[in-house]
């Protein structure tokens, strides 16, 4: 293909998420699909004979859910990458649709870690880097807790050392 083959490319950021993130994303997706599936199964058991299309929706949900749960975490793991230099934070996320975020260290307002119940169980954390923009924070998800803490410390240090009013 000639399309988009000219000019610069973004190189992948240096570091991957923790391999345990695959487990996290898998469980997370499975829970989501189960929430969708269970009421349907109950409905099927109760009114199954009267509403034959319920079987179809249950099968449909099962197939799509299984595919998504099998494919998405691996794909996501290959996409999710991050890197922090003295000047900027660089992160890639997503799977089917992908997103790169670059935030200069001089514009960083806060650096936090976030740990949901599942993440705590797996020893993972998400680092959230906010800037003055309403476009939302840069999130680096599924990091090993130690890595996340080191990243936060490092970013806090470099942010302190870099002048700028963040707007």
């Amino acid at each position, binding site marked *: 293909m000639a399309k988009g083959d000219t*000019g610069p490319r973004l*190189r992948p950021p240096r570091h991957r998420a923790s391999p345990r993130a695959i487990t996290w994303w898998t469980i997370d997706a499975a829970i989501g699909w189960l929430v969708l599936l269970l009421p349907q199964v109950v409905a099927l058991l109760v009114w199954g004979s009267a509403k034959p299309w319920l079987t179809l929706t249950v099968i449909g949900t099962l197939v799509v859910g299984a595919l998504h749960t099998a494919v998405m975490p691996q794909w996501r793991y290959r996409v999710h990458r991050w890197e922090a230099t003295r000047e900027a934070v660089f992160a890639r996320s997503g799977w089917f649709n992908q997103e790169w975020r670059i935030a200069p260290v001089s514009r960083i307002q806060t650096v936090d870690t976030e740990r949901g119940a599942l993440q705590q169980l797996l020893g993972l954390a998400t680092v959230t880097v906010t800037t003055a923009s309403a476009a*939302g924070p840069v999130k680096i998800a599924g990091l090993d807790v130690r890595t996340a803490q080191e990243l936060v410390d490092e970013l806090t240090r470099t942010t302190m050392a870099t002048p700028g009013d963040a707007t």
Partner: protein
Amino acid sequence: MTAADGVMPAPPPPPEPDWHRLDARMMAVKPVTEAAGLLLPVILVMFVGGLSPWKLWGAAAVAAALVLSGLFRWLTTSYRISETHVQLHSGLLVRKERSVPRDRLRTVDVTSDLIHRVFGLSIVKVGTGRNDGAGSEDELTLDAVSAAEAERLRQVLLRRAPARETAPDEERPAGGNPPLAALDHRWLRYAPLTLSGLVAVGAMTGGAFQLLQQLDIDPRHFGPLEEAVRWAAETALPVVVGAVVLVLLALVIGGAFVIYVVQYWHFRLTREDDGTLRVRRGLLTTRSVSIEEQRLRGVSLSEPLLLRAGGGARCGAVGTGLGTGEGSELLLPPAPLSEAHRVAGEVLRCDPPPTTTSLRRHPAAARQRRLIRALVPSLVVAVVLAAGAWIGWLPHWPWLVAVVAVPFFAWLGLDRYRNLGHALTSRYVVSRGGSLLRTTVALQRTGVIGWRIRQSFFQRLAGLATIGAVTAAGEGVYEVLDVDLGDGLALADAAVPDLLAPFLETPEPG
């Protein structure tokens, strides 16, 4: 960041300025405003189904509650402006004490509606340009102070270093600065090209029906309406349809004129000596918005389809701290396109205006993508409707309408592609897109505080990307849609030197 919230340690020495109360007249205005909303229900309760003593007591209690709440608000609200901070204390049961550093203040919005004007009062809102994390912006509201106090606050709040305060200036003509733009009565011709008329008619119809309902009148037995229905029944269909369309059109156009006049009468855009841009407008509710020029990050030119067809455009500011209510970013109401460009140039002190820069078109893959995205949903809808009709669940006309609409969607897709474009000038990143609402945004390159680059699965296949310039101002991110990935990255790299470069690689040629 949290240091700005809550109680600050009292700012040191210079004589503590006094705490001010809101204007005492707000005690009268507040109950009147709130009572106006309650008037209709109260009257209905009083007179429908006869008077009874407990109803009178009820009304008296409501009135007393309104007056008391006004009194308490006045007693408990106070503010002061020190050298460094603006502080606002309010609330009786839940005491709120807010303190905002003065160098964070970005905009001052002074509004007075009719009732406030009768009492000579204004509402002052101060935008701080800080996101509270939930997407809404932090602001302080003083409801209400006297008009004179509002003017004093406007001047004081956005003034930074006293040194910048006007040195004697002989050049300045008496009576303020000449406006950068002022309402030209000929602009009224753009009023019908906005959708505000439709909105007005919709609101009026809704209001009328609610009134009929509350007055317990069945619209089917409402005199004038009944006669109209009888006339319609006796007249040929095409005449009726024609009459209805004419009446609606007249209402919509009339409504649009009224709304334009009410909102934009006395519109003036001026550059003040204290380094702010000031927009004043309004017939009944007057509004004055002051924007700190240093915090202006760009302008956006918006052309809704109809307005664009008529050669008109609106101009708005891209700035921080403009979250203080609808329309606070307005720099120019619907006006000729050339005027919008001129205002954009004047406001940004940039000649020629960056919005007139000739833009780089996007690749053919972008056209394909726009077309697919416009056509596929409309075709799916048509097919589903046709299938419904074939089974016999639906009449035939819906899918016929859907099929007729397909060319329109195709045109829409093509138009969206035609409008796509981007450019880089010495100081601005310019991006255009949209069809039903075409917007051209010129964003200061120094105002870009990061990049958000998105590629959907299909964009990756087509070698396209959506490059978003992240900024503290306005909507937070301004996008260049469906640009060739290489072009887009080159644009981003050139716009903000050194930010993206460490993360780029150039593929081997060949």
